[in-house]
């Protein structure tokens, strides 16, 4: 079938900010789709609110809109661009939900936009619980007994009928928000109530529990002619009851017989054919571990996290093929780009095992309850390939970047048998290590199975590793080749032997034990493949090929998405690769995150899917022998490897290892700043309380205090008086007594940051970002504005001067990010400097229209700024504002206190752009889910310290017609200030206000401590669970109140493509001014 010839221009909707349940996989899918569509000469219009994505680059799509993902904005874009078609299935649940709304609002019909690929009826049949159930039953497939309820009473009635336990799933949400597994009547009430609210349509599905059954997924494709294929099946290590996003997943299935495999495959094809899907689809099954009985659990009629995983696991590019199918091409007409020989109508055959392990944010959020359940909590994931399960599992564990590389966790070895048993039964994020410890203690596999319902196959595999630990301990070293074959790293072997890692590595190298690299080719070597996508294993034949004699440059990726190290670094990695290729080198990527663009097989010339640990990375480098290695783009993960890479004899491109060390070593950096005469907040370290008190006396309050080593527990606090200080220092000394406490002056004032590129001689600064929140809120959680909206010219000049001096003194080649604090007297302090790409690079690239990574990479390769068409100086301010707003996933993390502070907690970001600062801010906030001006109600609960400062904001909001609800102390204070408000005396009242949709915003400035019994904590949790916008830092309230006042008639915004914004900028030579000469 030919292409749909009338389709010339297609709108692609992205998935918005990274949140738990919707991460980098949709940037990967969207980017692939853009490439795929443009290959067919389709003009692509892309909309996404997330600036950190590769898909929002003007090189990826013809027109890029960074605008709020809501119907109003999309309609304006459609009106402006008049696309012929819309691809709804690549932007995750966000894209899908938005498409449904656009359709229901009649907008697609109005502008004659054709829905491409999967039809809307299929989306509804898969997404709407009742339609789904009826559809599945109508094609003769089984679903668990279930009922849709719209109120609590019906839920109780159903539960009485079928009995507990039940699974609760709200309809139309992200990543299973608000769902849960309930075993008691109390839990039923709680989870159903939350679920009803989380659902966009106020519906919750109650389902008979199949907890403990095997969870199996199939990724299937269908084209318009009805040809259906399976790309991959996957088996969850964790049985039903744990969200697949939180499960360890293995591809292909390991414990299914052919009969079972085909039973579920046939059911999958029946479902996708019945739904008439045109593109990819994910189907989840529960399979009885004791018979061939199964249920269809879920169908996702779109690309998903699982499809990204399946694509990386097999080499079959699902999103890319889906885009072509949407244009009308048939599977048999599309070439398999991996082999270049076969067609897309085939099913990949794997000759390796793939293991995915999720990455949870529990290190950032020390909560007591780390249980895994039907609510996804992972922020990211790692994937590893091996020729045995043990090897793939151990490589995946290493990729998690824990302090230890194997299955041994000293904390867990200290637990009692009883604790281990209880935790195994409960099932938390550390269960792999708990299982290993139980096996080490001689527990029977069967008894662990009874507790966990994890298939005995996997338990025996873990036992193989644990048994091997003992063999190594007892042997004299001859087991080294076998240990490598089983997948153990040198560090793990050293740990088992009680030796130094260097000794093991030396022995291994002397014995010539190195891995070989095998290719991922979709066909188990049946055909020759052209895609250089490799993984390591310890076998006989190596398949690495060099097509030519070009010099090679290797980029170290950033590993899994986690809080503090997100998709921004993947953006940087990918752009570096583009620049490297352009400069005529062979580009190599090493990374282990299956969700990302960087690990797409056609991003780099060569892809190594490997753990980002020194041993694994150095092995690849040894095999490839590149001219140099780039470490400054992969976040802290890559920077941390710099020294080991250099020590192994490879060249670090860009800033030297010593520069990195100066910036990271507190003493060396202090000395540097002193030499340069640049102020920094005063700070010292203390080991005991008396020392700490002496330091406090010297510096004076407020103080920023943090332990130098944390293992769970509070990490960093701002303390305003001696009483708070003593209590926190005692607490820190209690949890990590042998480590020094860092005590710093806390500069009360503004915060700002600069990203700069330096070629060793000249410094180029794209701009200064001013934070709305004061110093003390982590920069990653701050609302950043470019250009600055309130910093005086003098302050800006000082910042530029400091940045220039530091960049030169550190001899930076490539990126440096510098954070500043500015006190009330406009004195500028340096908080920190990092000679690497920061998370604001993609934001600044989009705001300025300058491909910063491209330039920095060329400089790392040896060019000068002048070679890149730039010169020393800073860019003039553009005629528009760009605002970066952080996005949080608190709703998904039960028990976490949603409060901002010096520790980063956001998972993603959005960008608002507008010629008017206030509107840029409001657009950013809308994209982040903070929509003001709907209900005109604000709940205020302020602690005394911040009340004074908030007054003006409250007055402004009042003048715009807002009414207030306040807790007792705040109420009295407001009254004394002559501001009327309704008093709130209980959480029930708050909930009623939420329910009756009277509230736009909750403002809560917390009291000290994070005691979860406090009213404030409960209020904050209730607010995030009801998905009501909340502000815990008062500067943002100030900015919002000012912005709202600029638009008294309501917030109406226009849309404009990034391409058009960039057209407003003068030629580059006229944009740079030099403040230093």
């Amino acid at each position, binding site marked *: 079938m030919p292409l749909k010839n009338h389709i010339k221009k297609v709108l692609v909707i992205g998935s918005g900010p990274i949140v738990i349940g919707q991460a980098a996989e949709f940037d990967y899918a969207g980017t692939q789709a853009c490439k795929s569509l443009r290959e067919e000469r389709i003009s692509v219009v892309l909309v996404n609110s997330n600036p950190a994505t590769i898909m929002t680059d003007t090189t990826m799509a013809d027109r890029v809109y960074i605008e709020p993902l809501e119907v109003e904005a999309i309609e304006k874009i459609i009106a402006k661009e008049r696309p012929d078609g819309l691809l709804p299935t690549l932007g995750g649940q966000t894209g899908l939900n938005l498409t449904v709304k656009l359709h229901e609002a009649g907008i697609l019909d109005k502008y004659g936009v054709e829905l491409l690929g999967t039809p809307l009826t299929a989306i509804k049949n898969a997404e709407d619980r009742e339609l789904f159930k009826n559809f599945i039953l109508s094609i003769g497939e089984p679903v668990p007994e279930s009922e849709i309820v719209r109120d609590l009473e019906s839920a109780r009635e159903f539960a009485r009928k079928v009995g507990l336990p039940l699974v609760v799933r709200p309809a139309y949400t992200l990543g299973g928000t608000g769902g849960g597994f309930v075993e008691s009547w109390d839990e039923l009430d709680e989870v159903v109530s939350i679920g009803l609210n989380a659902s966009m349509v106020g519906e919750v599905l109650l389902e008979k529990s199949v907890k403990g059954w095997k969870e199996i997924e199939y990724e299937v494709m269908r084209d318009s002619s009805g040809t259906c294929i*399976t790309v991959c099946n996957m088996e969850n290590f964790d049985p039903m009851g744990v969200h697949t996003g939180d499960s360890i997943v293995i591809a292909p299935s390991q414990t299914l017989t052919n009969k079972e495999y085909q039973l579920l495959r046939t059911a999958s094809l029946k479902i996708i054919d019945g739904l008439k899907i045109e593109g990819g689809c994910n189907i989840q099954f529960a399979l009885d571990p004791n018979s061939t009985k199964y249920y269809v659990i879920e169908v996702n009629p779109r690309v998903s996290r699982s499809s990204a995983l399946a694509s990386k696991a097999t080499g079959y590019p699902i999103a890319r093929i889906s885009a072509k199918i949407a244009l009308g091409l048939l599977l048999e007409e599309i070439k398999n780009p991996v082999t270049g020989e076969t067609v897309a109508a085939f099913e990949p*055959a794997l*000759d390796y095992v793939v293991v995915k392990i999720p990455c949870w944010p529990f290190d950032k959020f020390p909560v007591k309850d780390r249980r895994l359940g039907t609510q996804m909590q992972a922020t990211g994931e790692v994937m590893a390939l091996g020729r045995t399960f043990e090897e793939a599992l151990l490589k995946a564990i290493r990729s998690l970047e824990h302090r230890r590389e194997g299955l041994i966790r000293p904390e867990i070895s200290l637990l009692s048998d009883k604790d281990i048993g209880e935790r195994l039964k409960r099932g938390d994020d550390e269960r792999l290590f708990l299982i290993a410890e139980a096996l080490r203690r001689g527990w029977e596999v069967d008894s662990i199975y009874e507790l966990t319902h994890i298939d005995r196959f996997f338990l025996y595999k873990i036992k193989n590793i644990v048994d091997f630990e003992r063999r190594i301990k007892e042997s004299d070293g001859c087991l080294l080749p076998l240990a490598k074959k089983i997948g153990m790293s040198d560090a793990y072997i050293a740990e088992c032997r009680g030796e130094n890692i260097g000794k093991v590595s030396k022995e291994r190298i002397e014995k010539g034990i190195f891995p070989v690299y095998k290719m991922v080719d979709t*066909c*188990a070597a*049946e055909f020759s493949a052209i895609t250089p996508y490799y993984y390591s294993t310890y*076998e006989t034949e190596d398949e690495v090929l060099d097509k030519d004699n070009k010099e090679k440059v290797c980029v170290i990726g950033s590993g899994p998405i986690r809080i503090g190290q997100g998709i921004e670094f993947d953006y940087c990695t990918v752009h570096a690769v583009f620049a490297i290729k352009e400069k005529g080198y062979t580009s190599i990527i090493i990374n282990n995150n299956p969700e990302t663009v960087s690990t797409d097989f056609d991003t780099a010339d060569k892809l190594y899917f490997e753990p980002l640990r020194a041993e694994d990375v150095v092995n690849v480098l040894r095999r490839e022998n590149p001219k140099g290695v780039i470490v400054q783009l992969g976040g802290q993960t890559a920077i941390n490897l710099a020294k080991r890479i250099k020590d192994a004899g490879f060249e670090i491109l860009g800033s030297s290892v010593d520069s990195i060390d100066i910036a990271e070593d507190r003493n060396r950096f202090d000395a540097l700043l002193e030499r340069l005469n640049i102020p920094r907040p005063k700070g010292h370290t203390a080991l005991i309380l008396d020392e700490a008190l002496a330091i406090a006396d010297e510096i004076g309050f407020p103080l920023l205090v943090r332990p130098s080593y944390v293992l769970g527990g509070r990490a960093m606090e701002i303390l305003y008086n001696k009483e708070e200080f003593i209590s926190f220092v005692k607490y820190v000394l209690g949890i990590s007594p042998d480590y020094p406490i860092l005590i710093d002056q806390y500069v009360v004032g503004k915060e700002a940051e600069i990203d700069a590129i330096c070629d060793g001689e000249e410094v180029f600064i794209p701009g200064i970002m001013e934070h709305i929140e004061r110093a003390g809120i982590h920069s990653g959680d701050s609302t950043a504005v470019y250009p600055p909206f309130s910093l005086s010219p003098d302050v800006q000049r000082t910042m530029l001067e400091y940045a220039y001096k530091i960049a030169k003194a550190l001899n930076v080649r490539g990126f440096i990010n510098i954070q500043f604090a500015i006190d009330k007297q406009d004195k500028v302090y340096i908080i920190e400097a990092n000679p690497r790409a920061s998370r604001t690079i993609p934001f600044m690239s989009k705001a300025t229209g300058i491909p910063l990574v491209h330039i920095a990479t060329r400089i790392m390769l040896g060019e000068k700024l002048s070679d890149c068409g730039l010169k020393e100086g800073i860019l003039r301010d553009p005629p528009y504002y760009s605002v970066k707003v952080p996005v949080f996933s608190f709703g998904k993390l039960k028990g976490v206190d949603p409060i901002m502070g010096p520790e980063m907690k956001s998972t993603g970001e959005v960008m608002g752009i507008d010629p008017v600062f206030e509107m840029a801010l409001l657009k950013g906030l809308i994209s982040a889910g903070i929509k003001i001006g709907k209900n005109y109600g604000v709940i205020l609960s302020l602690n005394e310290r911040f009340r004074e400062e908030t007054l003006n904001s409250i007055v402004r909001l009042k003048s715009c017609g807002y009414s207030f609800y306040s807790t007792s102390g705040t109420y009295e204070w407001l009254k004394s200030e002559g501001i009327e408000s309704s008093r709130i005396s209980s959480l029930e009242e708050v909930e009623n206000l939420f329910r009756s949709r009277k509230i736009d915003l909750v403002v809560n400035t917390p009291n000290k401590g994070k005691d979860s019994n406090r009213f404030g904590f409960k209020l904050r949790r209730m607010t995030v669970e009801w998905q009501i916008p909340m502000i815990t830092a008062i500067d943002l309230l100030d900015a919002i109140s000012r912005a709202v006042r600029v638009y008294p008639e309501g917030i109406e915004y226009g849309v404009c493509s990034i391409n058009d914004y960039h057209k407003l900028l003068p030629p580059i030579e006229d944009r740079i001014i030099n403040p230093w000469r």
Partner: protein
Amino acid sequence: MGFLLLEDGTLLEGISFGAEGESIGEVVFNTSMVGYPESITDPSYSGQILVFTYPLIGNYGIQLEDRESEVPLLRGIVVREYCEIPSHWGIDYDIDSFLKEFGIVGLSGIDTRALTRKLRIFGTLRGVISSGEFSQERKEELMDKILNWHIEDFDFVKSSCVKDPVYLGEGGERIVLIDCGVKQGIVRSLLSLGFQVVVVPAWYTKDDVLSFDPDGVLISNGPGDPKRLTYVVETVKGLIEEEIPLFGICLGHQIIGLALGSTTYKLKFGHRGANQPVKNLITGKVYITSQNHSYVVDPKGLPEDIKVSFINLNDKTVEGLKSTKRPIMSVQFHPEASPGPLDTKFLFEEFAKECMRKTYAT
């Protein structure tokens, strides 16, 4: 210890499992990720040493009901790793003890991907699989053995098939199944449609077959070179003249091709796996199929009414024949799957319709 020695002199040493012993055969690879019990017991592998490209074999043990024949007829299996402690509720054997019981040598710890790449590049190779330790002194003797062994010299069909008619099922139409080494999956597929099935030896003549008064005849899959099965080809020629509905699967398809006047040739390394895409040239639909064959039908020389009904989308070779006038159909792939996808199961129903039409006509 254990080893595999190939005709090009390549020696692969590993760890043996299953039975002790030594055997010679054609080394072929299969890319299915599940279904090793079915493959191990597939009679079409007679005379062959089977390499599994999927590295973990034996994970779910072996259930006797998954067998495609009573006993495995292949010469040995080669894997990266076999599972010592399988996990499944229906296990009758673990793979090691199953192979031991039936005298099949297994070899593990082999870089099966490297071996597969060799077979892909050089084509199918002959080899010796052994559970013993390799010694250099024996190399010459073993190489001699390998080089003097030719799969074409053997009639594996006669040793694979039933020796006397076997009657299965009750009522309905009667199908005579000419057993060239039939997979039980085919028998089960026929029985599930309500047929009476008479399984007869491959050497039965046309008259032998007709003596059962069949409503249709199925010529089964089986091992080896179709060209040496002149006796089956003769039988089929006779049956074609009788206008009895015919259905050929795999080797049976090749035999029908030969009986219709075409020829067959050997592929470099064959199609073995559960992911082979075929296209129905009549309807345009694409299916994923299970395949296991070295030989293919050359479409040249076929009578005018015989159309190529299916082709392989990877290499465009013939995957099926169908007459526009006569009740003849055949497919190179395995509609009964086992192991593999069930996408083309409907072909049995098509055959059933043909057979019923005949019933009603008379």
